[in-house]
């Protein structure tokens, strides 16, 4: 087989499982090397994907046109109501704006947008160039918020400031400014926020339905099928349930610190993880055993339906080796419970806890 050389400085980003050898942790979450053929995105992209499913807000990209064009409807996040998030808004910065500053253009764009769409809030994303020319986005946002009466939130997502993960954090910062500004009256004691679920193909609807069937109130989904009013009152929930931990753990921790809301991590991929998620949430409400009973009922019904059809696949796939190349480590866990011998995985963002989960007898990384 042809040997491929590993880029210098990237040796620790790959390892081969060898019997008896010490297995170091895989390196990750660093910028690409200069000169590499990379598919890694930027800080801005991280912020954009996390925030954009909020469907009744406008998402204005302050920068040259490309940043807005390439992230237009970037992940197909679906909404059950308004779809403002699927439009592409840009200040389309020109050479003169780069020289003289883009604040005026940003101000006018915001006023025009808010007048046109009457959104519940506005997110303003800074791009590389805005970070360089030093537009005071905070000041413009404050001014527009005062004039229009809606929250206008800057997202500090200059592309060069780190990796996509830093963009997640910038997005969470913006969300934190909204959380705590809504009325929490009437929220049940048995309530949660769903964090890190983006409703790309309607998953948030399925998951929400499970929890509601268990008798749990879902205060907000961050951010799949998201609504500003729901985000504002997210601090009224009793528990945060975090799925995409890479993007939302920071927010969960902040909410724990500021509002005393505990959080748990879950995964909705595969039968095992999905069931465990429902049980884990039920365990957080021990004073109401009906919740656990309902969870068991849901799992039993779903598995009964699913199990027979899975047997066909199992028969066909048992013993096969699979090469897995993913961006998000959660995808690898999808294959838990499948008969594959997982052979290769590669990812950009991986947490220590996920490293541990990967080292099973069944899988090589």
């Amino acid at each position: 087989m042809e040997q491929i050389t590993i880029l210098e400085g990237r040796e620790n980003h790959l390892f081969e499982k060898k019997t008896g050898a010490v297995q170091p942790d895989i390196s990750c979450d660093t910028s690409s090397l200069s000169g590499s053929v990379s598919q890694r995105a930027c800080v801005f992209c991280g912020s954009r994907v996390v925030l954009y499913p909020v469907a009744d807000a406008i998402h204005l990209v302050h920068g040259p046109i490309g940043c807005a064009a390439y992230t237009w409807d970037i992940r197909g996040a679906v909404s059950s109501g308004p779809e403002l998030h699927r439009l592409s808004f840009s200040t389309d910065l020109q050479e003169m704006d780069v020289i003289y500053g883009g604040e005026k253009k940003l101000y006018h764009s915001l006023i025009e947008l808010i007048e046109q769409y009457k959104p519940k809030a506005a997110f303003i994303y800074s791009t590389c160039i805005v970070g360089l020319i030093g537009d005071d986005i905070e000041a413009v946002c404050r001014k527009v918020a005062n004039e229009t009466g809606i929250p206008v939130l800057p997202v500090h997502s200059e592309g060069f400031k780190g990796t996509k993960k830093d963009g997640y954090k910038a997005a969470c910062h913006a969300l934190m400014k909204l959380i705590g500004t809504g009325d929490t009256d009437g929220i049940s004691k048995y309530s949660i926020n769903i964090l890190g679920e983006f409703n790309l193909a309607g998953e948030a609807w399925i998951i929400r339905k499970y929890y509601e069937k268990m008798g749990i109130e879902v205060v907000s989904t961050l951010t799949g099928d998201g609504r500003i009013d729901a985000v504002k009152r997210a601090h009224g929930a009793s528990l945060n349930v975090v799925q995409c931990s890479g993007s939302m753990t920071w927010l969960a921790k902040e909410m724990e610190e500021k509002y005393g809301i505990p959080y748990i991590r879950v995964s909705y991929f595969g039968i095992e993880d999905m069931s465990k998620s429902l049980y884990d949430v039920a365990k957080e409400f021990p004073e109401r055993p009906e919740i656990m009973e309902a969870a068991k009922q849901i799992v039993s019904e779903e598995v009964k339906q699913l199990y027979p059809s899975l047997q066909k696949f199992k028969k066909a796939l048992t013993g096969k080796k699979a090469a897995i190349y993913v961006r998000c480590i959660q995808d690898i866990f999808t294959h838990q419970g499948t008969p594959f011998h997982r052979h290769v995985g590669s990812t950009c963002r991986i947490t220590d806890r996920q490293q541990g989960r990967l080292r099973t007898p069944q899988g090589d990384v």
Partner: protein
Amino acid sequence: MLLRHTSKEVKEREGLTINPAKTCQPIGAMYAALGIHGCLPHSHGSQGCCSYHRSTLTRHYKEPVMAATSSFTEGASVFGGQANLLAAIETIFSVYEPDIIAVHSTCLSETIGDDLQQITRKARDDGKIPEGKHVIFASTPSFIGSHVTGYANMVTGIAEQFSVSTGTKKNQINIIAGWMEPSDMREIKLLSKKLGVKIVLFPDTSNVLDAPQTGKHVFYPKGGTTIPELQSTGDSLFSLALGSISAEPAAIALEKKHKVAFETLDIPIGLTATDRFIMKMSEVANVSVPDEITDERGRLVDVMADMEQYLYGKRVALFGDPDQLLPLTEFLLDLNMKPVHIVSGTPGQRFEKQMRQLLDARSPETNFRNGLQADMFLLHQWMKNEPVDLLIGNTYGKYMARDEDVPFIRFGFPILDRIGHSYFPNVGYSGALRLVEKLLSAIMDRQDRDALEEKFELVM
């Protein structure tokens, strides 16, 4: 519906762009560089830019698109990106082994003032460019022009930095491809062969972005204009630039540097533009037009005459890039259709003037706008005010087509949800025939769908 947020009332906007009908310069530079054999495009900026361009091109072509990035950090953005580019050049030549690195800048590297010429010179002086290998560059800040001008800048860079004149003229003609698909470039080569004219076509993405499945992945597919071909462009008899925005600047560069005379034509889309191309080729190369081509033309004219009744008076909205919109509009007019709204995000007075001229002569009431705020939102508003029978544009048009319930033909860049554009040409007589077929199918399918029982016809 997705675009129910679009209001009918058109208001002048001061800064805002909604649903852009363009994207930024670097992706054009990347696309152009892929048309050079053994070339790895390189994006001198943040790592995100490179990924966006690669993924958009990959989605458009369903082919892996290779390109490298300088991967700017905060430090590079403060202290300049020279160290990143020098390191990148070293990494690329040792790991990916291209013959050429084609560097394009981004808004970030331009604003901090990186000088690509100086950095590449330093790379050469420091011995970072191996013998026989090349690094070329083009300046493509995202805050100027559009993807189309970015393409033009890289094609100009290619012409300027490779061409040499030996003092002996070569019996060949340069054809500088404006932004077109690999299928179009293949067709241009085929037509030239039929005419018996030796050409150097650049860039040439055929056999790069429409490469056949061989069971083996290669980093540099067999297509693309070669270095010796590019070097020989300085000795050519003549240059034909296909497209005044995307191709002419390179022809000007060759004229300045090597006194190669040139003429600019439209991209040969449609009957008349193809006629001009064929006649010009026959004139400058002093060849007669073979029957094979005349017959191709005849078949197109026959179909146009047979089916004109279905196209006559049909109202069309179109958006896209200047060099395609001009001949396409002309072709629609030749088919007796009515271009009602035309939008291009690409700025520039040259294009504005050319389009106005065409419209003033043949369709003065057409709404036309290009440049800032000439976006799909405006087009959609226009469509709400003056409805159309057909929409033509890139994939993003599907939202408007669905919202307004009009037939939609995918044309331009990017097309993210269908195939065909990389395999079947739009240029030449056969390309025009394909366009007519598409127009007819779109309109007649709709007629069938909406026909009352008694008007639902077997023979049309």
